[in-house]
């Protein structure tokens, strides 16, 4: 992919368009016709039972090689996202915040952050940051998630608590400045204070020219970050779409009342 950024994003531009997406892993079809359109300035929440396909969708968007797309399409700013490697998707501005951030022993968190930040900067035609400039930059950015600078010196996510891992994910999001951020259960495993810090970090990073897809089980994250749309997934499809009231209804009534529903997509 060429190291250049297309024209600037305007609020309301379609950033991500998913059409009738089917995907399987190890012969099991997980996604069975997902369609979703996300515009700049929007926050979407994706909910659903365990195993409904939420995380699979996020990994397919990010390009995880274990998943095979058998039908459908994903377009990112009009470009065929499925044709890009995972790294090119990230460089272009698609970010996945992992539900379970991977521990990588021996790889310095600081170096990892610098290399990834520079990969994105290079794509955007920005000058790469040397080690000194990056260290200043990352220390300033860490304030967004109130992260201890000592974590820069450690290996990537190694020995981090669940909350620290999630903060590290949001720190990466802040450094990469994505246009589309998909946060897979970023609220899981967080205590009340950590949830507030992470949620505030996400809100700070949400701009009129960016979009966020929050995958979550709980209303508590949506109390902190108000979504424009709430989607409910089941058996590999989006069954229902509504606004924040849908999430509150789910919190009160559970998923049973929605099973079998078949509502039009936005």
């Amino acid at each position: 992919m060429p190291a250049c950024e297309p024209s600037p994003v305007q609020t309301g531009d379609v950033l991500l368009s998913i059409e009738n997406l089917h995907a399987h892993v190890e012969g099991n079809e997980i996604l069975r016709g997902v369609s979703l359109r996300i515009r700049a300035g929007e926050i979407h929440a994706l909910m659903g039972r365990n195993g409904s396909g939420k995380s699979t969708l996020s990994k397919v968007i990010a390009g995880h090689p274990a998943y095979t797309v058998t039908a459908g399409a994903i377009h990112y700013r009009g470009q065929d996202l499925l044709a890009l490697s995972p790294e090119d998707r990230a460089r272009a501005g698609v970010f996945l915040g992992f539900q379970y951030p991977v521990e990588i022993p021996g790889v310095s968190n600081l170096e990892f952050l610098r290399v990834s930040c520079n990969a994105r900067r290079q794509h955007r035609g920005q000058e790469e940051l040397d080690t000194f400039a990056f260290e200043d930059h990352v220390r300033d950015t860490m304030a967004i998630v109130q992260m201890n600078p000592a974590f820069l010196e450690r290996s990537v996510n190694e020995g981090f608590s669940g909350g620290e891992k999630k903060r590290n994910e949001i720190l990466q999001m802040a450094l990469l400045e994505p246009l589309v951020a998909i946060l897979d259960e970023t609220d899981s495993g967080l205590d009340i204070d950590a949830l507030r810090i992470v949620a505030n970090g996400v809100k700070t990073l949400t701009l009129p020219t960016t979009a966020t897809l929050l995958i979550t089980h709980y209303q508590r994250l949506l109390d902190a970050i108000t979504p424009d749309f709430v989607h409910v997934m089941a058996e590999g499809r989006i069954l229902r779409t509504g606004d924040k009231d849908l999430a509150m209804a789910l919190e009160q009534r559970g998923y049973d009342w929605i099973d079998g529903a078949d509502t039009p997509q936005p």
Partner: protein
Amino acid sequence: MSNATQSQSWLDTLLQVLAQRSGQPAGQRAAQWAGARDWCWPTPRNEAWRFTDLRCLTQLDPARLHTRTAAPPWPHGLSQGSSRHVALQLDGHGHWRAPQGETPFWPHGLMPLPTEETTPGQVARTVISSETLPLGAQLNGVTPGPPLALQVSGADPVHLALAIQMEQAQAWLAPRVLLVLQPGARLCLSWHVAATAQAAVLPMVEARLGTGAQLEEAAIAWGCPGATFLGSSFVHQSPRSVYRRTNVTWGWGLSRDEPFIRQAQGQAETHLHGLAVARGRSLLDTHSTVFFDGPAGQLRQCHQALADGRGHSVFNGRVVVPRVAQQTDASQLSRNLLLSTRARIDTKPQLEIVADDVQCTHGATVSCLQDDELFYLQSRGIGREQASRLLQRGFCEDVLQRLPWAALAWSSLQRLLEIPVPDQP
């Protein structure tokens, strides 16, 4: 002619050449060297040599062997002597000289031993008393040359940096180092051995650690595909002594590293950490042996290997715990990263435990790069090739971080850190 016959013929010629240089008949010279009486050229039929192909060594021409060395590219600041530090490099006559060529100035706490106290093999024989010396030590023993024999005393640590640089084909170097650490003495020893030509280096280290003495050894050894490294070390530990050895090896056509450690009365600490990076057609073999001859000894050993291309890593970790060595606490781990379908890892723990009140653990892992780790890095915009390099370096880091500055400062190691290293350094 069979390989075995060819090898024997090569050995006979080599012994004749080395004997002529020493001025003694080959048989007499070999016989003087304890353990060399029964020359037995290793073949794949020997369990300990199953995977070790010696052709890289026997491709050298005995008639053309020489001892010429080159000036090592000392890192800035390391070649300067001080009151606690001395740097030495091997010259073309087998003598250890200061980098500027002068006779070394010995820092306080380091003193050359009189020649009459430096019988070759004197420590080795106490470490492996009933066994035949390894091939590298035998060949070292029949190669003429003066030993570097030093006595270390005092609780303040002394730093000794040794460097060998081989840049001419057919170089044959067999340095011998004898270290006698007085009770409570502390020595930080660093090695840098490099070969950029078809050559062979056969270093042999003997160290006797007195009660409470500490020896910290860091060794970097890198070569080119035609070069051979046959290293052997013999460490005799008294109670409460501590021996830490960290070594990093890559690039050699053949490397066989054989450390032998004996905790003579137990109650000592041994820490062995090794990293072998085998690429191209490199064969890197480590055979270690730790004997516990008394109670409450401790061993912490981790050998890591990375094999790519047609690289081959061999590890055999022998730990001997007889009945007298009750309450021994030993752990051994072999971690391996296999990066290509043609690369090969052979790893074998060999724990010989008779004592019944001990804690001895061992483990071995062989894996490739983890898809989830690669994907995580890629999902942050890092290309697959760079992600692979980061993960490989991360794998090596556990050993590398144990190296002292005196070892880390060498530019060769910096090149290794930019994994993958070129086949031709």
